[in-house]
């Protein structure tokens, strides 16, 4: 808990600005430790048991080739991809909630996931390879972003409400196209398409795109924290305090879209992380965006890494989509925090 400060209700319009940056470090270091712990846990747990001695031998020269393949070639890239993806989604969710000043906002609310899904499922329908599926998901996400950007920009006055409405209606349109594709899709391809829609880290080919993007996002967004705190209080107040509101809002929109696109092409449309992680952090730490954005990166990443352990092992050898587990882990945690905050 943030000491004497009252935690603010989730997504409250009034962002509370913490007095000093020094307060940011203890929570961030705690979350960083949690992140490292979650990745270590992901390396040591799997459907095949690797004894502790086998794990330790990986650091030496006498590693068992099977254990090396299991831990270094299967678990490590997947855990890192999970961390990158979860972090991106949580940061994108935090940005969207500030931008739209709406507690229900998540990275997908403006239709980006729909565009990506249409791209990915279209490639799957044509039976194209995994690389093409990722590529066309990215194109779909960008197309949807440009479409929403262009339409909301339009003529006349621009408001977050207008952006939100445009995005929600575009999302509904994509939803119809997705349903149509599922209906005309050949039966043997349907399970794969559903796994993509629910989100699954079996799709993660490489951890680097998501991890790099997450690092870049944290560095680029760090100086914006103060402006975002002001923006969260409302555009009028922000303008009075010297923030150039519209450029900032467009920057936030495009940044959130880019982060989400990279997350979605890594592992499909994993739900829940982007919606709830920023809320959880605000309940615990208050609403200072200078803390919430990097904290979202670490907490979102850790949550997805832990959830993916469950996805891989709970019903092994059957594999679950990770989206199921994120919700199973996250819902009770969130409800507990919300209950306690009253």
């Amino acid at each position, binding site marked *: 808990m943030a000491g004497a400060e009252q935690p603010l209700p989730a997504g409250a319009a009034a962002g509370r600005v913490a007095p000093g940056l020094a307060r940011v470090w203890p929570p961030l270091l705690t979350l960083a430790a949690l992140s490292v712990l979650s990745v270590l846990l992901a390396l040591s747990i799997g459907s095949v048991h690797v004894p502790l001695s086998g794990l330790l031998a990986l650091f030496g020269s006498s590693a068992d*080739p099977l254990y090396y393949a299991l831990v270094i070639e299967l678990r490590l890239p997947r855990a890192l991809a999970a961390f990158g993806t979860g972090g991106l989604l949580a940061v994108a969710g935090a940005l969207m909630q500030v931008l739209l000043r709406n507690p229900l906002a998540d990275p997908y609310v403006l239709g980006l996931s729909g565009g990506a899904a249409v791209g990915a499922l279209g490639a799957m329908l044509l039976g194209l390879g995994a690389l093409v599926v990722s590529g066309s998901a990215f194109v779909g996400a960008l197309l949807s972003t440009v479409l929403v950007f262009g339409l909301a920009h339009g003529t006349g006055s621009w408001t977050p409400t207008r952006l939100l409405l445009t995005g929600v209606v575009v999302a509904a349109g994509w939803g119809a196209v997705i349903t149509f594709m599922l209906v005309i899709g050949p039966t043997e391809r349907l399970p794969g398409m559903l796994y993509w829609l629910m989100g699954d880290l079996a799709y993660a080919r490489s951890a680097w795109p998501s991890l790099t993007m997450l690092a870049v996002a944290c560095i680029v967004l760090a100086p914006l924290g103060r402006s975002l705190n002001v923006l969260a209080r409302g555009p009028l107040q922000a303008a009075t305090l010297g923030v150039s509101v519209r450029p900032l809002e467009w920057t936030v929109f495009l940044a959130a879209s880019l982060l989400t696109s990279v997350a979605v092409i890594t592992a499909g449309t994993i739900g829940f992380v982007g919606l709830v992680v920023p809320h959880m952090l605000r309940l615990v730490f208050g609403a200072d965006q200078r803390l919430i954005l990097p904290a979202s990166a670490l907490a979102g990443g850790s949550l997805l890494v832990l959830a993916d352990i469950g996805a891989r092992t709970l019903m092994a050898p059957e594999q679950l989509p990770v989206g199921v587990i994120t919700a199973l882990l996250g819902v009770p945690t969130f409800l507990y925090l919300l209950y306690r905050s009253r």
Partner: protein
Amino acid sequence: MGIGNQPISVAAAWVPALVAGTLLLLGAVDLAAGDGPCVIDDKEREVCLSRPAERIIALSPGVTELLFAAGAGDRIIGAVRYSDYPEAANELPRVGNHTRVDMETVLAMDPNLIVAWVSGNAPEQIDRLEQLGLTVYYSEVRNFDDVARSIRRFGTLAGTGAKAEQAAADFSADLDRLNQTYGDRDPVRLFYQVWDDPLMTVNDTHLISQIIELCGGHNVFGALDRMVPRLDRESVLAARPEAIAAGGMGEEDESWLEPWKQFDQLPATARGNLFFVPPSTIQRPTPRVIEGAEILCEHLETARGRR
């Protein structure tokens, strides 16, 4: 990493000789490529092993059946959910379901051949297995020729070429026999129902439609574009099939035929030509389709008798 290609300790001397002999006969091998068996898979790639496959993982229920037919059943060390035929397949250790395979379990089993299902498995998972050094044969069985060809190829890979050749020849002979008996009989206009809700049938590219043709039937929806089209009941009434054949949720569940009994104006209903075909005998592209084909052919013959 090359953990999938470790040499096999047991290698009876006659096995490679027999394989080579069989393959020379079939002309299906490129002997220059190495000592072990080589075949072309359904992605037109060459699959070569250093020794005959002794540790096989089958990533679809149909592939498991084909491997058993090829005499390689005792060389399967892992299979996916629903691998239920023959009886022994139920006892095989599981590696997940065909949509999502448990990669760790597959790797830990140390297979020297993975038989993947092109349209059913997740491509990114199979790619990953290949990157990890495992040998993958891609299988996509669409018609009778594919069934016989796959059995021969699996026999080659597993070093059970003689048994596989026999099984493939038996299969082709059974098909010829059915085709000679029924193929030129008066066509019976048939609606084949593969699913009830939503109502689904198959077009002429599907194996079931090829069985219908073998039996001298005519699939009333064979010309539709999609392989498994979804229909409404009206379009079936409009097509006026002479006979309706359907599977069900189990091997004896005839409930899918019930709704058709209310349509007296339908020729199939009027003549009592509502037939049940146990779904497991006809829906997987394996030698068992002979069973399903025999049942369907007899039903169509019954329908001819009721004209």
